[in-house]
């Protein structure tokens, strides 16, 4: 079977400006992701995992190599993104934000509101549909961000540390919500995070990246059966074993990137 996403020897070099040296963000990343797979990408900060996602979203171009998403038969959009700070437009109400992707695709106002309403209700935001983002808490904003992505209904969902800015409790709740949604839709998802627990809770597979320049170090298949519950998962002995395995690989990288930073400092 051909993979849904095929990433082939991606290399990204940011050209230097003035006295700054050129920076190599990604150094030959190759990855194949199957249709309907939920892959989590974990790595130390600045390892280029966000760059990888932005290339998939067409917000950036690689220096060499390519990343191809194979379209399916449907006319659904190829990819959609969920941003770290939710990225809601402050000038639109929650309902307008959620329906934004459909608006761009030329869906009639009545239909796009009906479709948006479905996901707004699923996310428990019906009371806030006509509120502006500034009136919502961070957690609710990210719920609206998820509703926007699911209303857009892309073939591939790209998620860039969507829960990174939330407190631990809200984060757990939203992880459970995302697992629920994914059970319903079974989309291909690339989920970038720096939290190992989050990656093990959500992913079918966890991909570990090295410190800059980013390379793929290691992959872990996550064995837990679905549907999953974020809390009971944590009591599973395999969870701690996997955590230890992943941490063992990452630890060296984190320390390596710290020493590199210290050496670069004047």
């Amino acid at each position, binding site marked *: 079977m051909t993979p849904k996403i095929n990433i082939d020897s991606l290399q990204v070099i940011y050209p230097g400006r003035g006295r700054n040296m050129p920076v190599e963000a990604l150094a030959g990343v190759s990855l194949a992701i199957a249709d309907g797979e939920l892959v989590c990408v974990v790595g130390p900060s600045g390892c280029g995992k966000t760059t990888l996602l932005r290339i998939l979203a067409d917000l950036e171009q690689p220096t060499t190599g390519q990343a191809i998403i194979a379209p399916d038969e449907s006319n659904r959009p190829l990819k959609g993104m969920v*941003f770290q700070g939710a990225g809601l*437009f402050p000038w639109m109400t929650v309902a307008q934000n959620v329906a*934004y992707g459909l608006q*761009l695709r030329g869906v009639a106002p009545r239909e796009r509101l009906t479709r948006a309403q479905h996901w707004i209700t699923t996310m428990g935001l019906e009371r806030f549909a*006509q*509120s502006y*983002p500034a*009136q919502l808490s961070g957690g609710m904003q990210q719920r609206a961000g998820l509703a926007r992505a699911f209303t*857009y209904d892309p073939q591939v969902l790209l998620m860039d540390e969507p829960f990174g800015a939330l407190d631990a409790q809200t984060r757990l709740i939203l992880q459970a919500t995302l697992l629920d949604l994914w059970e319903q839709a079974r989309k291909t998802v690339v989920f970038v995070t720096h939290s190992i627990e989050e990656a093990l809770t959500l992913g079918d597979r966890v991909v570990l990246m090295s410190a800059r320049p980013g390379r793929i170090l290691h992959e872990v298949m996550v064995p837990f059966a679905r549907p999953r519950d974020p809390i009971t998962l944590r009591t599973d002995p395999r969870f701690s074993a996997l955590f230890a395995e992943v941490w063992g690989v990452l630890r060296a990288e984190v320390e390596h990137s710290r020493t590199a930073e210290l050496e670069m400092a004047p």
Partner: protein
Amino acid sequence: MKRTRTLSVIGPLVLLLLWEAAVRFGWINRAFLPSPSEVFHSLGELIASGQLARDVSVSLIRIGAGFVLGALPAVGLGLLMGVSPVARALIQPFAAALYPVPKIALLPLIIVVLGLGETSKIATIAISVFFLVVLNVSASVLQVDNHYFEVARSFGARPRDLFWTVALPASLPGIMNSLKLGMGFALTLIVGVEFVGANEGIGWLIWNAYEVYAIDRMLAGLVVIALLGWLLTVALDELEYLLVPWQKPSRRIKEARVGKGMGVWWNAIRIWSYTAATIPVVLGGSIAAYEGRFHHPWWLLLALIGSIAIQAGTNLVNDYYDYKKGADGPQSLGNGGSIRRGELTPRQTLGGGLLAFTIGSVIGLYLVYVTGPFIFWLGLFSVLCGYFYTAGPFALAYVGLGEIAVFIFMGPVMVIGSYYVQTQHVSGLALLASLPVACLVAAILHANNLRDLDSDRQIGKRTLATLFGRAGANLEYYVLVGGTYISLAVLVVLGLVPWLTLISLLTLPLAIRLMRIVANEHEPIKLQPVLRLTGKLHMQFGALLVLGWVAAWAWSTFG
């Protein structure tokens, strides 16, 4: 909180008292600085003589024309510069080089090119507003966070989507700010522009006071300028809230989902109530016609449109505040009309109301311009009463003054106003002849309050009906409807009004039927038709009355 507010009221008052005392006791030479009371006295004189109204409306027309002519192209060009680097490269150096030139310094040059007339004054304001706004607008587009563009692109936005869904809305707060700055500029400039080669306008008023050394009048002019500035700022704040509601979400009330189309506006402005706004205007015109002084058919038409616009504005603003007060109250029992039926959002309703008021004001200013200041005070008073009918802490409709306000405004005030537009005179006859219609229009409102008597009592909305109780309220209805016919009869018997107007007595059967219903029913559902039929009675009575006046004119002219 409360204490600081008290202090901020007391502070200026104390200062005024000190100033007054200083002049009275001779600590300050009153030749240089007259006392506040003298300033207010001369302000009163300016109002009474009609000079102030003329000068203010002339200045407002100049500011308005200059502001619109300068700001509109500036916003367009500023947006273009914000999104297109090519446009920016072409225009920026030019705009940036001219921006620091004090535009008042260009006035002589503009006068040389355009002459001393209105054009040069409007052009000076337009040019300065233009440069200020164009630079600020392009800057605010450039300041839009790039993140929003990325979000839009991740959803497949094309360049024109980026403009309409991101660049434009995201820079609206900046655009509004630059418009406010531009308005400040326009206010500053109008004075300077009118110092030179003008013979009317608020700046001229101040300069002229200086030339004849009337310091009190000069200070009165300054007070007026300050008030104008404050009013225009309030107006722009209101506009900002309408265009940029997400900036002040706290002020916002929950917006219900709404339908589309002109139909909902048609319902919201309550077209049936328009006979109340049109009959008095036509009546005033027909009285002028009877006297052979119907000279300006077009102005009658304008007065009609203007009064319909103010009526529409009143209805919409009332919907908004009724809804808001109801929505804010403990029991949520407002009657926000179209808002409650979910046809319009509160914001749309308020916006529509303010737009209607604006149209009414523009027509009003034109009529002031052609007929004189009397209409200015009439119009200002009407708009204020229309707005504060339900708005503000002392909302007329909530303190039992609704009928009285309607009686005065949709009776004598409108008839006299329309008569004045034709004749440029105020007439006692027009006042007297308006009384029957005034009674009936108050009866319409009272029919409404009669129906809502019980529910109004529950939410504590005070109307004459709730104050009088059921029996007294019924009596009030008989007095108003009966008074319509009695006042007409008396006027005819006294020979003040032509006998042909008695043709409106043809409506008596309907009137009697209505009084019977009121006497026998007290349930809202049974009283519902009374409201509609009283409106119908007003329309039929008014139409026949106008017919009577016109027939009397034809009789005397051709008979």
